[in-house]
């Protein structure tokens, strides 16, 4: 048998294509890096398996029956006035209702355990973080450490993180697929998100709610560090960078993309509450 020369090349290209295609899943919840995302992935798998049994019969029966009862098949039965059967009716209605009832229990349970507002049980103290959605950047405030960052959120591995979110502009939504699901950030209102990282790494966060021409640039690197590294980062940030004063804040409020992360050595007290209140005041 003659093997053409093009074929191995084609094969290599194709397999490279498939491999690079699978690389994308490393960014997804499949490659979860914390307890919340891990639990969400388990739920995916459970529901997915159940649904295979729901969709499967339709995917099999539709082509089989259509083909078997084709006009040109003279060996198939033809009952043009047959239009009802209580047995079939039972099979059509009862199992789907049963499956939905079963899934409802799963849904109720997981919706409550994975409620983004529910604190994560842990022996470690919870880290309080405040996230402010701006155009087109995320301002991350650490109220207890009195520091802040833009475009980067550094968290310690193993400690629960409790994020309060609001928006200084239009509505946005914060999603970090490898750590937790998303929640909206809305002006004048606070929402909450609990998450934790189980291993060190850089996880991509982003705004998923369109908010203008800089939307595509609005990413947030979430960096999970070991406890010691995290403490060093806090100390370094406190020591080296600029304070977040009124002028700097006004600058952040202006519409712009921020390609490099920024760090602030101190923030005014109650900055988050101030931003919340400001959103509700009449715009000049």
């Amino acid at each position: 048998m003659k093997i053409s020369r093009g074929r191995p090349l084609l094969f290599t290209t194709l397999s490279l294509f498939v491999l690079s295609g699978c690389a994308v899943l490393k960014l997804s919840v499949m490659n979860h890096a914390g307890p919340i995302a891990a639990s969400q992935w388990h739920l995916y798998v459970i529901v997915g398996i159940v649904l295979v049994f729901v969709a499967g019969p339709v995917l099999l029966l539709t082509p089989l029956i259509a083909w078997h009862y084709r006009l040109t098949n003279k060996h198939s039965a033809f009952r043009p006035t047959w239009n009802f059967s209580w047995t079939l009716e039972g099979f059509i209605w009862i199992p789907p209702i049963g499956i939905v009832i079963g899934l409802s229990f799963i849904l109720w349970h997981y919706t409550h355990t994975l409620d983004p507002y529910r604190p994560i049980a842990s022996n470690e103290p919870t880290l309080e973080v405040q996230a402010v959605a701006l155009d087109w950047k995320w301002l991350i405030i650490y109220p207890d450490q009195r520091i802040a960052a833009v475009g980067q959120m550094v968290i310690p591995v193993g400690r629960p993180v409790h994020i309060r979110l609001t928006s200084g502009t239009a509505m946005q939504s914060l999603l970090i697929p490898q750590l937790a699901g998303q929640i909206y950030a809305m002006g004048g209102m606070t929402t909450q998100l609990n998450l934790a990282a189980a291993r060190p790494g850089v996880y991509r966060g982003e705004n998923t709610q369109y908010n203008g021409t800089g939307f595509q640039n609005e990413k947030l690197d979430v960096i999970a560090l070991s406890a010691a590294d995290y403490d060093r980062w806090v100390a370094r940030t406190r020591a080296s960078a600029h304070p977040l004063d009124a002028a700097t804040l006004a600058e952040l409020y202006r519409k712009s993309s921020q390609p490099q992360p920024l760090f602030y050595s101190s923030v005014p007290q109650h900055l988050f509450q101030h931003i919340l209140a400001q959103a509700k005041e009449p715009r000049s």
Partner: protein
Amino acid sequence: MNEGIWPAVLGRFTWHALPFVRAWEDPNASEIIGAGAASMVVIGTVFLVVLITGLRKWRYVWSEWLTSLDHKKIGIMYIVLAFVMLTRALIEGVLMRMQQAAAINHPGFLSPDHFGQLFSTHGTIMIFFMAMPFLAGVLNYVMPLQIGSRDVAFPLLNSVSLWLTGGAAGLVMASLVVGKFSTGGWSGYPPYTELAFSPDVGPDYWIWAVTLGSIGSTLTGINFAVTIYKMRCPGMQLMRMPLFVWTTLCTSILMIFAMPPLTVATAMLALDRYLGFHFFTNDLGGNMMNYANLFWLFGHPEVYILILPAFGVYSEVISTFSSKELYGYTSLVLATAAIAILSFTVWVHHFFTMGQSANLNAAFGIATMTIGVPTGVKIYDWIWTMFRGQVRFTVPMLYSLAFMMTFVLGGFTGILLAFPPLDYLVHNTLFLVAHFHNMLIPGLLYGMLAGYHYWFPKAFGFRLNEKWGRIAFSCWVFGFYLAFMPLYVLGAAGMARRTQEIFEPAFRPWLYVAGLGALVLFCALASLFVQLWVSIRERNVNGVFAGDPWDGRGLEWSTSAPPPDYNYAVIPRVHNRDPFFDGKRTDDPYAAPASYEDIELPKNSRTGPVLGVAGGIAAFGLVWHMWWLAIIGVLTVVATVIARSFAREVHRIIPADEVERTEQRWLRAVAEATPIPREIEMTSANQGLADPRE
């Protein structure tokens, strides 16, 4: 233009509102594409005007079409509008896919602002000006015929609905040539669409186009529901109605209840933008959550407004092309009604991520899964309809089969999304985009295309070309899988929707495949146009004037193709669910009646076109703050409505002898036609007369 009288005359208009000027001053790819699209609108309009003038057809177009109150012509005009808008919105979809494939760590060829307008117009058009007119057109054409009626309950209102939709679609087209469209997406979420964040004309175009369109749809819903309740022929009890009529009824009821929240939401947003109200702003007590609730109180029933008519089409198509009674008619009716009611109980699943309590999210998640039960029942009913039938793989049947298998995958991901914790992960990502295209392309587009192929011979008297129909079908199906399956993967990996530039090289292969799929979908649309062209050329070979090319079951097949203005010379009387199918087998359905009578039909009216155009002009004036133009438009609307109320001669009479001539011409054609068995229905031997022997 900023001095003297000009601001009062031109409002917010400046030369930079014209894409040609922008492209001239800054000739980059994005602006040139914008100017190109604008020229297409201008050239298309000029070409159409010149063509009609050159052929001296203005009188014909005006009196036979634009002012007609005939439900069949109104239906056809709706579908023409749907195809025009489908062409634009599909090209926009292809452009977005090309941009994303090209823009991996590179700005691509579309500016962020242009990209924002594209996804907003694509969604707005596909829902309000492609899907809604398409289904309104099919409903208009088919439903009165199926219930044995000569027209709808309110023929003038029908024309008004069409023209309001037309005026709104015209406004969206105008936004290509003058100014810019909204970048707030098809759902127009504030506060982004408020003056504080989008001060330009874009959201105003969106608001007024959607408002006009939603009023038209509300009126359509009222009209169709009343028609079905009051205009059925003798003997057609509710449980004898064809399933398509049942789905039309449920869709109409949904329109009546679901459209007003949308009109209210857009009106409140307009009050915010024009008169300084603060319904949905961040400040002064406004709250965008109210908008989200109002919008999706419309938005979720809307999904079923779009899908139910297609379910009706599939019920007709599968039964006809299996030569078999519909399995589980009562089940299907109950399931349809259940879907219609449940559709009002699930709207919160569009914003599980807005921070409400777990109890609330769980309740709405469970309600969402519940809808899956009646939907699944319908799929199985169609499968058992084919069971022990004689299935013919015609184009409408192919669409139906592709629908069942594809829709079930959309249902699969829909149940995943119904789980709030899973929705948190993929909300606002391409996973969601893939899901709703996975529902609406098979659940609406395939259904409407199946209906188009199925009833086209009825409407125009000749069959559509089979080969090109199959080519188009293959492209729609392969194109769909190529274009949208990769989006599930990308969405699961966290790629946000509406992204103009991508910074993740791992997304590349999937975006390439999706881009290829978009091109295949473009070929699918092109094939449909080729098919239409080829079919018109060979219309004499494929004529089916006798009116029954598929061995049809319902009343609509018992009249000529195309049907006469009055549909039925004698109003039929029915005794069962498949009156024509059974009639052919027990009786002679083509027997001439003893005598004919004069028939009264609604007279043409200018009211519809005047209201639509004046409404569109008023909206245009409001968008550009040309107050004088808005006032003229509104006054014209009011004056027209008052003037119409003085019109006394609103009917015309078709004399009995003219009816007799028309009927005899048809009955002669029936007598001369050769009855054909089902094996050769896809060939030119099909003259529209079915051989009822088995």
